[in-house]
């Protein structure tokens, strides 16, 4: 789909997961922009009913309808869709069974509650079903979208969410739902799908990422890249880091430096800065350790810089450029 070589050529369904607080939705949006760059059509879907995409692109809440939300550098388009299980169910009934009237009756009788309450496997079939339908959809002899990016449930649930086949198998061994789940799985298991993990260089998100990658492999689902979010450039050398960590920084030197910079070089400020350097050093050491642990997963890794003032649209384009530069899109 691209004239450039990327790490994920041939992948058309990018599933983006991550622990809460890692910036999963932001990275999914940035990835969609990156994939759209240079004239492609990309659909960004969300499945958790949070309207996170609308917030990121600063537009009104998304209806159950594919809507253009952004233009990518070089003339590509990003469309967005918030998949709502109820609407997806009606859609599904219409598409596969021509049961428009039934949809209304089912809603009235609380079937939607049933689908979303008793059997989450069924809800997930609907959500993944809608996303994979967009992947397969053709118009005018070619694919309607060059790529679909899904802002998926968090890492702890991702394998279960994608492995709908296994989930549904227990509920429906034969029959239409089973067949539908099979079709969804065909796409998800194919080389056209990659599941990316968003993480921070912190202990818990890294652990969840490693567990998630292992779980996906066990379920024979395709792990993709690891997007390490909110990273900072290294500013201190090893000697300074060691001294900062050990609390042996020379306060006099800091005082002299502060004065040289035209600041009042009082000892309290110097001490406060030394404390901040010490905390920074602890963090850097921790980040290095977590980075090494991530390397063990043997999946491509991408480093996304922290956007100091919180991610706005400009920040999103910057992250997209990073992803492209590093070969993620």
């Amino acid at each position, binding site marked *: 789909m691209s004239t450039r070589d990327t790490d994920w050529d041939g992948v058309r369904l990018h599933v983006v997961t991550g622990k809460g607080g890692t910036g999963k939705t932001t990275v999914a949006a940035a990835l969609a922009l990156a994939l759209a760059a240079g004239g492609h059509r990309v659909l960004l879907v969300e499945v958790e009913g*949070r309207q996170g995409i609308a917030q990121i692109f600063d537009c009104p809440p998304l209806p159950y309808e594919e809507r253009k939300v952004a233009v990518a550098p070089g003339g590509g388009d990003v469309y967005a869709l918030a998949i709502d299980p109820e609407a997806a169910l009606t859609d599904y009934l219409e598409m596969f069974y021509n*049961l428009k009237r039934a949809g209304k009756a089912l809603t009235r009788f*609380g079937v939607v509650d049933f689908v979303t309450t008793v059997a989450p496997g069924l809800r997930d079939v609907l959500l993944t079903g809608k996303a994979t339908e967009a992947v397969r959809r053709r118009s005018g002899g070619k694919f309607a979208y060059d790529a679909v990016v899904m802002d998926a449930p968090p890492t702890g649930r991702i394998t279960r969410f994608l492995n709908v086949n296994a989930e549904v198998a227990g509920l429906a061994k*034969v029959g239409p739902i089973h067949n539908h789940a099979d079709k969804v799985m065909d796409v998800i298991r194919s080389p056209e799908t990659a599941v990316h993990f968003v993480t921070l260089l*912190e*202990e818990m998100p890294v652990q969840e990422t490693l567990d998630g990658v292992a779980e996906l492999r066990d379920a024979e689902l395709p792990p993709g890249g690891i997007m390490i979010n909110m990273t900072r450039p290294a500013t201190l050398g090893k000697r300074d880091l060691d001294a900062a960590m050990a609390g042996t920084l020379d306060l006099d030197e800091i005082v002299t430096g502060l004065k*040289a*910079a035209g600041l009042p070089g009082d000892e309290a*400020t110097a001490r406060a*800065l030394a404390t901040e350097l010490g905390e920074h050093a602890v963090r850097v050491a921790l980040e290095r350790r977590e980075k090494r642990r991530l390397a063990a997963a043997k999946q491509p890794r991408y480093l996304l810089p922290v956007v100091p003032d919180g991610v706005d649209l400009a920040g999103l384009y910057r992250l997209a450029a990073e992803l492209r530069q590093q070969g993620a899109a």
Partner: protein
Amino acid sequence: MMPTEAPGLEVDRLIDDPRTRIIVCCGSGGVGKTTAAAALGLRAAERGREVVVLTVDPARRLAQSMGLTELDNTPRLVADIGGASGGRLHAMMLDMKRTFDEIVEAHADPARARQILANPFYESLSSTFSGTQEYMAMEKLGQLRRSDEWDLIVVDTPPSRSALDFLDAPARLGRFLDGRLIRLLMAPAKAGGRAYMKVFSVGMNVFTQAMTKILGAQVLKDVQTFVSALETVFGDFRERADQTYKVLQAPGTAFLVVAAPEHDALREASYFVERLDEERMPLAGLVLNRVHTTGAADLSDARSLAAAEALEETKSHPLVASALRLHAERMQVAEREARLRGQFTSAHPAVPVVEVPAQPQDVHDLEGLRRIGDELADLTRPTDLTG
């Protein structure tokens, strides 16, 4: 803009008060709820209370620090806590499937219980339904409260995106079980089924046809068996959930909303605060976790950056230049956090707030929990860094 000054949250007064029997820590996922709950429980125990902490999904190392090595659904004594105070700390991890199984076993005769436990829909409902965890947390809380073995129960709510799930999920499940669909599905299994169907005759044909078409006949049958088997169990079950919900409204319960100083987490916290108010549930306050602090608040980010640049130009004092850049960044973060906090307190001026500074690394031992506990109880910290 000067942020509105919120009252400080007096954590020690809350946990020392013998009338406080339940503290519910809620908030969106990833804000440090579990750690806050554990730290509170530990502090209360060391101040002499008989405490049980109910956690739902702790990080492995945090669980280990409290001596929880596996999910076993029973409170375990955490060793070496309390000392002279006479307090004790118990901790347990919720196993939602086991809690569910126990309820079924307690309320259905053995044959029926076996039938329910073996049904594929039960398997699905008890282990994957996103609301089951909330329902079971609520149920476990009720059990612990009724046992009266502890004088303080600290609950860590399940990790969901929305803090409201904890309050809403049980009702949703209850509504579903009361719903028309259930009655409809059970109708054929009942003696009076025919008459029943007549009531629903409008759309009934379409309904069964559609259900059979979508689900397949076998699935429909499984669902029906499951639903009718559960019905015997659930009348009682629903009542218990309602009772527990009422306990949450009673004096003696305190909600602590935990949030990180980030836009999304604080928005969720806001929703939750409003909701608690609507439900007349007692809110103790907001724990603002992982706040960035500095010992050099007088040195603004702009001055700090300018000074760093000056040093970099002359290529002198690179360490100090880096320190100033780090400080500038920290000041920016602190200002953003203060702004967000200001927005929250403007909207909810009466909600007491306590800030817990960001820790350089994750907490996974009792010492770390004690440190968080000290921070939680610290009333000396300036409430506004930038003002």
